[in-house]
C-alpha cells in the first residue's frame, strides 16, 4: 500500500498573494512536491478543496479584520504544523503602517461608505493570535527557502534558514559593501538573511524585506545613517516598511519620530 501523503494547505489573510505565488513559482519542483505531499487547499493553484485536518499549513497575510481573527483559530485547530510565510504573516506587513495612525481616519478618507468597513485598529502577525511552529521571513519569501522549509518538514529535520545579517551573504558572494564603498545607507547589518543579498547584488542598499535579524543593533546603525547625512524622518521611513511593525524596527522608527 502506498504511504499516506501528508496534507498541505495554503491559507490567505491580508496580503498581496506574492508569498503563495512563490509556491506556484516552484515550477520545476511542483511535480516532485505533489508526489510527496497532498495539496489539499491552495486556492491560487486550484479550486479543489480537501477537508482537514492538515499536516502542514502555510499561512500568508496578517490579521486585519474581526472575521480573520476568528478564522485563524479554526485554521490553527485543523493544522498539525503551522508555518507563517512572509512579512505580513510574521510582522503585520506593509499594511501594519496603519498601526502608527488612526485607521478610522483612513477609512473615512478612502471609502465612500465607511459603514461597510469592518476592520481592526491594527494589522498584526499570526503569532500574535495563535501558536506558530515556524516563521519564514521575506517580502516576498524566497522560493528556495520555502522549498527548504517543506523539505525539512517532510524529512523531519530543522530548516536551514539562518537568522544572521544580510552582510554575511554579501561577503560570501564577494559583493563590495555599498555602505562602506559608496556611503549608501543599507539595512543589511540589522536584517535577517534569506534573500541572498538581492539588493546589494544590484549595487543598492538593503530595504530590510526579511525583517530584523537576531540581536539587531538598530540604534547603532541609525547613528551611522545620521553620519551619512540622513534625517530623522528618512531614518524613520527606512525602518518603517514591510517589516515596520516587527518590534526592533518599530521601536527604532518610533525613536526617530519628530
Amino acid at each position, binding site marked *: 500500500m502506498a504511504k499516506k501523503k501528508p496534507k498541505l494547505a495554503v491559507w490567505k489573510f491580508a496580503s498581496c498573494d506574492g508569498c503563495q505565488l512563490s509556491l506556484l513559482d516552484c515550477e520545476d519542483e511542483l511535480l516532485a512536491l505533489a508526489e510527496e505531499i497532498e495539496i489539499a487547499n491552495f486556492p491560487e493553484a486550484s479550486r479543489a478543496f480537501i477537508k482537514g485536518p492538515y499536516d502542514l499549513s502555510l499561512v500568508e497575510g496578517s490579521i486585519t479584520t474581526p472575521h480573520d481573527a476568528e478564522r485563524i483559530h479554526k485554521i490553527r485547530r485543523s493544522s498539525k504544523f503551522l508555518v507563517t510565510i512572509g512579512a505580513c504573516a510574521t510582522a503585520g506587513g506593509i499594511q501594519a503602517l496603519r498601526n502608527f495612525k488612526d485607521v478610522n481616519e483612513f477609512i473615512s478618507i478612502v471609502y465612500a461608505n465607511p459603514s461597510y468597513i469592518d476592520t481592526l485598529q491594527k494589522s498584526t502577525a499570526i503569532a500574535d493570535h495563535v501558536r506558530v511552529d515556524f516563521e519564514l521571513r521575506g517580502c516576498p519569501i524566497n522560493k528556495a527557502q520555502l522549498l527548504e522549509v517543506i523539505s525539512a518538514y517532510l524529512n523531519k529535520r530543522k530548516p536551514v534558514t539562518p537568522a544572521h545579517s544580510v552582510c554575511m551573504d554579501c561577503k*560570501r558572494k564577494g559583493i563590495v559593501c555599498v555602505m562602506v564603498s559608496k556611503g549608501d545607507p543599507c539595512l543589511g547589518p*540589522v536584517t535577517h538573511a534569506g534573500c541572498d543579498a538581492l539588493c546589494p547584488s544590484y549595487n543598492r542598499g538593503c530595504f530590510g524585506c526579511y525583517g530584523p535579524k537576531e540581536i539587531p543593533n538598530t540604534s547603532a546603525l541609525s547613528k551611522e545613517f545620521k553620519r551619512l547625512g540622513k534625517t530623522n524622518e528618512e531614518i524613520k521611513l527606512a525602518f518603517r516598511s514591510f517589516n515596520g511593525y516587527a518590534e526592533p524596527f518599530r521601536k527604532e522608527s518610533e525613536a526617530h519620530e519628530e
Partner: protein
Amino acid sequence: MDKPSVIDKEDLNKLIAKLNQQGYKTIGPTIRGEAIVYDRISSIEDLPEGWTDEQGPGHYRIKKRNDKALFGFNVSPHSWKQFLHPPEKKLWTAEKNGSSFKIIPEELENPKFAFIGVRSCELHAIAIQDKVFIQGPHIDSVYQINRKDLFTVAVNCGQAGGTCFCVSMQTGPKVNSEFDLALTEVLEKDKHYFVVETGSDRAQSIIENLDLRTAENQELKIAEEIIDNTAQNMGRFLDTEGIKETLFENLEHPRWEEVANRCLSCANCTMACPTCFCSTVEDVTDITGDHAERWQKWDSCFTMDFTYIHGGHVRNSTKSQYRQWMTHKLASWIDQFDSSGCVGCGRCITWCPVGIDLTEEVAAIRKSDKTKIDNI
C-alpha cells in the same frame, strides 16, 4: 637567491603570459564597480592602473592617482581567502539506497592559482591559514588542493593605507615571509619599472626566460626608500606589548559593553578578515529525501547559531561575541597557533559599517587597564 633584477612595466605581461602558459590561473587586483577587487586577470590591462584607494574606519573609496601606478593602492575588500578557503563549498552528496545511503565525495580539482599583487600582510595571513588548515592534525582537503601549487607574486607596498598597521604586527610592509616573486613598483619621471626579488626555484626558472637585467644599486636603494617610507606612514598603530595578558586580565572591562553598543554583530569584520577561518556545516535534502548534500560555509563568531549547543547559546550577547572575537584574534590565538591572528591589514576597520577600530579598542582597554589601575 640571486641579486634582484628589474622588469619594465610592459614586461610584466610576459610574466603573466608565462604563468598562464604553465597552466596557472592568474588572479590579481582589478576594478569592479567602485572597488579594487581580486579576480581573474589575463594581462596588465586588467590591473587598476592609475587608481588608488582611500581607507578609513567604515570608509572606502577609489580615486584616480596622478600617475600610472599598477599597484598604487592598499588591500582589496575581500582577501585571497575567498580563493583558498572558498565561502561555500559542497563537501559531499548522499544518495539513498533502500534503507542505507551512499556518500559520494566531491571531486577536487587543483586550480593552480597564481596570485599577482599579494601584500606582505596577506602572505602572513596565508601562512596563518596554512597552519590552521594543513599543518595541524586535521587537514582541510579543499584548502590543501587550492593551496598546493599556489604561486605568489608579492608586491611591497608603496604606500600605507589609512587603516594599515602591519608595522605593529611585524608583517610588512616589506615582504618578509615565503613568496615566489616580490616586486617593488618604482615610478620615476620617465621610468616605470619593478625591482624583482626571487624567492623560489620555480620562480627563478620562470624569470630566467624573461631576459631581465640585474638591478643597479641605485635602483635597489630607491626601492628600499619606497618601502621605508610606507613603514613610516602607517595609518594605525597597535601596541602588542603583553597584549595577551592585558586582554585576558580585562575580560570584565567596561569597554566591552561600550563597544557592544556600537557593534552591529553583522559579522563583516570576520568575513573580511584574511585569517578568520570559522565555518559551519549545513545539511540539506531535496523534497524526496533521496538526495542530500553537505555544504561548508563561512561562519562567524558573531552569529547566535555559532555557539548554539544543547540548552542554549554559549555567547548570547554582542558584548560576549565581540570580546570573543578580539581576544581570540589578538590573545588566545597566540596560545593556539604560536602567532597573533592579526596581520594588521586593517580590513576589519575599513569594512565595519560603523567603523569600529580594533586598534582603538585595544588602546581604550590599555588606557584604563583594570589590573594596572588596581595595583596603583
